[in-house]
């Protein structure tokens, strides 16, 4: 599973991307987040407030608790702020 982090989520996690193999029991987004938060205090802090973090699976925004699999590309990031003032 490929994981990406952007903006302050990236800064808090401490890496831009990582390839991980979650245990078999991790089958959905909530399970993945719970597992990541146990991996390190950095992950735990970055993902502490789910209201501040957006998620994309295979480059599509997702909401709720969709399934995740070993081939997925999963990204965590704050609400987007591009464009102009």
């Amino acid at each position, binding site marked *: 599973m490929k994981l990406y982090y952007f903006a302050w989520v990236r800064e808090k996690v401490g890496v831009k991307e990582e390839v991980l193999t979650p245990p078999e029991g991790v089958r959905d987004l909530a399970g993945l987040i719970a597992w990541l938060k146990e991996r390190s205090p950095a992950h735990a802090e970055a993902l502490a407030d789910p209201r501040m973090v957006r998620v994309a699976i295979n480059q599509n925004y997702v909401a709720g608790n969709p399934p995740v699999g070993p081939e997925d590309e999963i990204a965590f990031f*704050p609400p*987007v*702020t591009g*464009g*102009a003032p």
Partner: protein
Amino acid sequence: MIRVQQEDFDVGAELAKLAAGNPGIGGITSFVGTVRNHAENQEIQAMTLEHYPGMTEKALEDIEAEARRRWPLEASLIIHRVGRLEPGDRIVLVATASKHREAAFESCRFLIDWLKTKAPFWKQEETVEGPRWVAARAEDDAAADRWTKEGA
């Protein structure tokens, strides 16, 4: 057409290209976003734009396609820069061309409103107190939502 790039762009050349060879166009509306030297009463020395390569391009293409589905456009363009920018620098250009000005104005506004809330870009501002990530504005969500309701 959409582009994500580090380099600056030439607004006149881009708009001329957009209209070239299509004398059915009656008007082109464009919006250029620029880096301000202040935000929330604090001086901004520079700004760095981060994005999600791959997903960003896909998001911009989706937003452009949605505009072309909603309005009768002859041409459209989104260029967004990434990397480090200084006050006065151009950040983004959106432009739409149509037979009539109504469609050009509406769709151009739509592009920038949706881009701001749907395309994965993040801004970090450099201030005297250090860098800070720009927070999403409720006004931007409201501006984007307006089109969701109207277009439904």
